[in-house]
């Protein structure tokens, strides 16, 4: 049986094709202004027997393509615990939201928290700050890694933080130290959420921001437990969605 897992987010649409529990293909595309049509391109390949959608567009996708829908929480929990069987928690920092999930012994979700009201501390936040610093995203992460210490950033609101950063640049503050300060403030906030759901290690760090080495290093430093980053951190949701297919009795292995 071949299952198509779709993760329809505000920044990207991810697809994973699963054949008897193994990933046979995957794709990541920009959401654009009409994520449903982006997803339709994947569906139109027709190479599947069932569809499971997740992400904020899951209900729309279910109506349009059929199949079932699960929330990102369940999908990320399932995806992470199959990729790393002893995973005890999951952190996902995506384009516009952050979720932390603590998992039980069998990979079942026990508790979760979502920051979904604003862009604070998400990929979007980092993009805006990089622009304010005149860096690319990659340059900003490297600068943050190199700086010996960070400048304290007091606001987490994207709009306020941007003007704070601009002010610091005008004052002649070192851009690398600002970059580090920004990463530190996100890490601090994220570690707080992890604590609130009593997350234990190993922690699977997924989502687009898991590709940022400075964030990974800071989370690893502050978290009491191992931090694991999947190679394709972006497709954990789509993978987990496919794994959550109710009709698929296939062994959960990759």
């Amino acid at each position, binding site marked *: 049986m071949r299952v198509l897992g779709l993760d329809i987010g505000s920044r990207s649409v991810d697809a994973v094709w699963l054949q008897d529990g193994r990933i046979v293909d995957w794709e990541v595309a920009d959401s654009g202004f009409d994520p449903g049509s982006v997803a339709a391109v994947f569906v139109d390949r027709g190479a599947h027997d069932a569809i499971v959608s997740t992400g*904020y567009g899951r209900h729309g996708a279910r109506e349009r393509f059929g199949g079932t829908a*699960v*929330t*990102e*929480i*369940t999908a990320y929990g399932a995806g992470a615990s199959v990729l790393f069987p002893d995973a005890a928690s999951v952190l996902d920092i995506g384009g516009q939201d952050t979720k932390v999930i603590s998992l039980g012994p069998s990979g*079942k*979700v*026990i*508790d*979760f928290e*979502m920051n*979904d*009201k604003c862009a604070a501390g998400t990929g979007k936040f980092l993009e805006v700050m990089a622009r304010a610093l005149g860096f690319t995203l990659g340059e900003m992460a490297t600068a943050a890694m190199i700086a010996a210490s960070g400048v304290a950033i007091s606001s987490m609101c994207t709009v306020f933080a941007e003007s704070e950063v601009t002010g610091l640049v005008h004052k002649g503050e070192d851009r690398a130290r600002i970059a580090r300060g920004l990463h530190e403030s996100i890490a601090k906030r994220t570690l707080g959420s992890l604590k609130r759901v009593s997350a234990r290690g190993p922690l699977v760090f997924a989502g687009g921001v898991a590709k940022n080495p400075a964030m990974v290093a800071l989370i690893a430093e502050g978290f009491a437990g191992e931090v694991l980053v999947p190679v394709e951190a972006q497709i954990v949701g789509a993978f987990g969605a496919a794994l959550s297919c109710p009709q698929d009795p296939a062994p959960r292995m990759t």
Partner: protein
Amino acid sequence: MSDQAVDYHPVWTELGLDLAAHDALLRAVGELFGDAYLTQQNRPQGMDYLNFVMSEVHGLRIKELDDYRKSGGTVFGTFCLYVPEEIIRAAGGWCVGLCAGAEFAYDQVEQIMPRNTCALIKSFMGFKLAKVCPYIESADLVIGETTCDGKKKAYELLGDIHNVYVMELPQMKREQDLAMWRGEIRALMAKVEEVTGNTITAESLKASIKEVNDKRRALQRIAATRAADPAPISGKDALLATQVAFYDDVPRFTQMMNALADELEARVAAGEGVAPKGAKRVLVTGTPMALPNWKLHDIIEKAGAVVVGEEMCTGSRYYQDLVSEDASTLDAMVDDIAEKYLDINCACFTPNQGRLDDVVRMAKELGADGVIDYSLQFCGLYEMESNAVEKTVRDAGFPVLKITTDYSMEDVGQLATRVEAFLEIL
């Protein structure tokens, strides 16, 4: 909205409503109701009465209030469970609940109160300022109470434009607080007697205690059927019953709710339900949900679960306790009323262990799979108490989800994701 399409505009005009704004509000509530209620499957027949009441929410009932006032009756508006309806009715008065559950005219409200005021307060003030609430305009006297700081100050602002009387509510439940509260109830009696021109007698108070208890008993019967799996009534419908209890005619409402309870009991006996057997069961606790605030229940039930109880002022706190019917002297009855009302477990009291006990007891009795703690944003009391609720409920073995929101529809998508994820882990 009714078949006869009676035109109530003359009554509304007489009450001084802003007709255009009022039409817009009615239309919005009608749409909301259609989407949340009329799309439900397998509703009990007894809900036809509440559908009708809703379709006439600013019509027939307002006409009744109008006729009653023209024949010399006095209407009292209240905002809080602590204001005893028995006292008002014993003096021949009628009570209507004025809490409001929809965003309206916030721009006007924010000119006189801070933006970070809870939605409940902003909403009733918006209804008043925009002249769209026929209930408050029908109220000869509004009775406020010193519960939370927001309401306390809001009554001062309301007092500038409406006739307001404020009761002082203690914040603890010790003997000396009860003594003070007994005095407040007696002061209210004097006020109500003065405004109505009627005297409260042992006979009239005894009758009104019985009458209001009967209303609570009918709601208790409905609540009890919700322990069955499958649940015979949706949480939305049960919530609507409590919401309507605040302003409908008491004997008629009681009779109709007893008929609904009969039907629900028969449904339980036949194993019939609104959601399939085994559907996830949720207990909701927190700040009151005033009409037409159905937001959270709608999200939960559209995600396939069923709400089996509300530990809130628009729920168990309203009907779970009765006033003793044993007393025969006026004084003893008033003391019984004082005692029963001080027993309500609102977060304005400290400590408020009774509420925590109620939540756990209800979760067990109703067979809930999980608890959702609901706070209106900027309600310091309930948001603050939410920590203790979470801890107590978790320790009792129930998963819990904390939600803080307001009346806007902007966060519905995000809330739905959180609620669905919560249901997936139950």
